[in-house]
């Protein structure tokens, strides 16, 4: 029976053509977005990879130098992109793409693409994720809003229900028919997208991510489908069903994300860049716990001299300058860990607020999941910066160790050669595994499945009521 209903619904939707235009818009945008995504991935991944290579080569070929000079010269870490980075650009336009790794400083990622964008980019970037998040629900609503309400107006609902069709069968039959109509329009495009992913360089490793992404968007569409059917069964006219669902869609997709961002700013304000830097400078000068770095250096000198039974640093078997550099570096790192730790804790609270708001918005839950799976979430940007930072610390430590053990006190003209530069392993970002991402996505998945369960239950309750009022 479900199949009969589904077949009738499917045929009617295709014949009716009420979603012709929105389906066409969605299809065109999706194809355009996926094609540009492929192109952008090819361009930008090549660009970043070659830049990383150039920077590594520059470092290796810097000639004979004092290791501290090399530490000042430093290296750059470029954020790599994956084939999915352009399916959903996530926060990618608003985060930097490269970090300068140098002595003494933890630098921020720089070169946010948004700085080069015009104001119009704020309407939203054309990506497949944006298209699906924004247009798919509207398409589903237009597809399903007259399902019950329209038949009620036409008087056919009473007839159908009198033919011993269980209301629940009717609901699932209509859902199936609408879903089938939907997959005719979008299924092939998403399938081609997955094929494209497989053939993109390195894409095979992201096939699992891609499949989960498709599943996420299917659930997203189903949420709106059952919600629309529930509303359609509940209200008197098709017109009312349309108004209610478009209103819900607009508020949950457009208003709530912005509200979340402003409320999170109000509740958990981030420091200004100026005061953030001033605090770091202050802590660098006078120490985190009130003991200034200069005092600590002096103490260390005393201890070291005592340890080696020496009167002056010149008598030490090592270059004490290297130890000073190292000690200063470690003290600095503690300061960075404290202040960046505090900042990221605020970011976490803000992100948590977005998650809380997503309870009211299927779109927000879907977006959070989509960014995470595409590798463009805030989390993964911070993972990149933290890996780059620990690479920097190892690099600088290596340079300082070389000064300590291979040069003498006061030997400012000490030179290390290419052997030292070559001993540095190139930076390579290790992305989180799919399993780790899925574990992190627990809350978003929970919200999505709650919405799905809720909308199905609402649909079932609504169609049951239809029978009661008629009986």
């Amino acid at each position, binding site marked *: 029976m479900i199949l009969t209903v589904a077949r009738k619904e499917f045929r009617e939707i295709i014949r009716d053509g*009420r979603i012709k235009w*929105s389906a066409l818009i969605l299809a065109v*945008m999706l194809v*355009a977005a996926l094609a*540009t995504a492929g192109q952008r991935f090819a361009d930008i991944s090549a660009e*970043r990879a070659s*830049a990383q290579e150039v*920077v590594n080569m*520059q470092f290796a070929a*810097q*000639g004979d130098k004092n290791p*501290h*000079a090399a530490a000042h*010269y430093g290296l750059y870490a470029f954020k790599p992109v994956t084939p999915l980075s352009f399916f959903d650009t996530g926060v990618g*336009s*608003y985060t*930097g*793409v*490269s970090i300068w790794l140098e002595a003494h400083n933890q630098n*921020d990622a*720089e*070169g*946010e*693409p948004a*700085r*080069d964008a*015009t*104001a*119009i*980019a*704020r*309407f*939203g*970037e*054309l990506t497949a994720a944006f298209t699906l998040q*924004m*247009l798919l629900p*509207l398409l589903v609503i237009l597809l399903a809003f007259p399902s019950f309400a329209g038949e009620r107006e036409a008087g056919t609902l009473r007839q159908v229900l009198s033919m011993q069709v269980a209301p629940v069968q009717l609901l699932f039959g209509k859902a199936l028919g609408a879903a089938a109509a939907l997959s005719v329009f979008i299924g092939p495009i998403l399938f081609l997208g997955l094929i494209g992913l497989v053939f993109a360089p390195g894409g095979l490793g992201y096939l699992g991510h891609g499949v989960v992404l498709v599943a996420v968007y299917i659930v997203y569409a189903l949420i709106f489908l059952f919600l629309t059917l529930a509303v359609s069964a509940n209200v008197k006219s098709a*017109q009312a069903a*349309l*108004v209610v669902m478009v209103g819900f869609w*607009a508020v949950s997709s457009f*208003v709530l*994300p912005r509200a979340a*961002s*402003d409320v*999170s*700013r*109000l509740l958990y304000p*981030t*420091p200004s*860049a*100026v005061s*953030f830097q001033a605090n770091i400078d202050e802590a660098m000068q006078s120490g985190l716990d009130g003991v200034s770095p200069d005092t600590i250096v002096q103490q260390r000198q005393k201890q070291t001299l005592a340890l080696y039974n020496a009167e002056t640093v010149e008598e030490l078997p090592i270059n004490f300058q290297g130890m000073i550099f190292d000690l200063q570096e470690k003290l600095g790192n503690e300061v960075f860990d404290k202040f960046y730790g505090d*900042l990221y804790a605020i*970011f976490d609270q803000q*992100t948590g607020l977005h998650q809380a708001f997503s309870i009211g918005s299927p779109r927000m839950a879907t977006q959070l999941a989509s960014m995470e799976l595409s590798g463009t979430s*805030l989390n993964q*940007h911070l993972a990149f910066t933290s890996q780059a930072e620990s690479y920097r610390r190892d690099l600088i430590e290596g340079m300082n160790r070389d000064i300590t053990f291979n040069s003498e006190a006061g030997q*400012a003209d000490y030179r290390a050669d290419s052997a030292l530069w070559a001993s540095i392993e190139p930076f390579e970002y290790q992305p989180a595994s799919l399993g780790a991402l899925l574990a992190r996505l627990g809350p978003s998945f929970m919200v999505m499945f709650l919405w799905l369960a809720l909308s199905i239950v609402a649909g079932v309750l609504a169609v049951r009521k239809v029978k009661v009022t008629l009986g």
Partner: protein
Amino acid sequence: MKGFRSVFVQEWVILKHNSTWWAILGLLLVLTVLAALNGSARTNQMAEMGGGLNQSELQTQMALQSAVARWEADPEGDPPSVASPGALGLSVLSHYTVLPPTPLAALSIGQTDVQPTYYKVTAHPALSFLNEAEIQNPLNVLAGSFDVAFVIVFLLPIFIVALTFDLMSKEKERGVLGLVLAHGVSKTAFIIAKGAARALLIFTLLLLVGLAAVVLTEPDLSSAAMWMRFGLWFLIVSLYAFFWFALALFVNSLNKPSVTNGVILANLWLVFVVVIPALVNVAATTLYPAPSRVELTTEMREATEVADQESAESREAFFFDHPEMVGGDANADQFFLQVLATDSAVERAIEPLMEEFDAQAQLRQDVVDLLQYVSPAIMAQNALNAVSGTGTERFTDFVDQVLAFHENWRGFFTSRIVKGSRMSAAEFDEIPSYAHQAMATRTILRSTLSPAAGLAIFVLILGIWSARRYARYPAV
């Protein structure tokens, strides 16, 4: 126009007793007030921070000045190291250039969250401070802000569509239209009276909403500049509302069922507010992509390395940015000359790339400026940003002013470094200070009135087209 008055009055009475209408209008009012308060919280916070930025800089400057003055009064031993223009300009002093908010800034956040509203200018190349960014959670920037411009551009059309999508179709479906015409009321009078009653209500509300927002957010209600901006704001908002109104009237003239009208208008909203802006953005960035920031990074590095190698010997004598470690016999002046040489070598090397950045950005902006006329939503957003002083044009102008100031600031120190002269206490008073020049009224008018004209043309075309269709509109 026979019957205009009676239909108008009748419509007014109906609307007065329609609770859905009042609910929708109330919601619009509440959302706008919330958005205005939110915007003013952001603007006040920024203004407060911007105001305090140069305080510690000026304090440092004054402390150094008095140190030099003390030595001048009693010149014993070497002059203090801060009398060296190199130490001052290249390591100690900096100056914040701040973009002050304009009146009505609270109504549109615009580009404020992606473009810096202040720069820390030093005597080093501009690129060293142009790339600095304010700390923000990128997730928040991605979501955008809930400001009044958002309520107007995104939500107002939905409200208007919800109130007007069945303007004529409903009368027809209920058989009212035929009845009214049978009573001798002219069709034109009927349509205009119905439309005018709603339009009057919506515009009264928009005016109230706008005034409420201004009263809540503006510190100075007697400022003529503010009221001029408010006049422009209301003009744009009215034209944008008129556009959606005219669009709904037009869709009604297609003589379709109310439900179909709703579907068509929902699709049109999507096309104008979501689809076209996304496509215009793709067009602009594909036609004139920004040069690669990654390439800029590697080029700059290459240039720095070459310049450093050229001056390797002298640089090494200063132990790489640690002249204090070399001891007293290093010639600090020589060091700063070297820094200047490296700075200018790097600047020369990346200049072509920077020019390409600027040229491409200009071309991209030109494309967007031209293509904005395709979508009333883009025109409205651009114009609302311009009215609030948060549009691209003002940020570009700010960067230009900052760069000019940077030249001035740098020139002050470099000329003295090159001459090898010391700073006297009196010369401290001559250190440049940034004063932001407000944009000419003409520019503001241009960047708001041209989108406004575009909106007016849309309204006009839709109006004429609808009028012609309604002439043939069947009564039953």
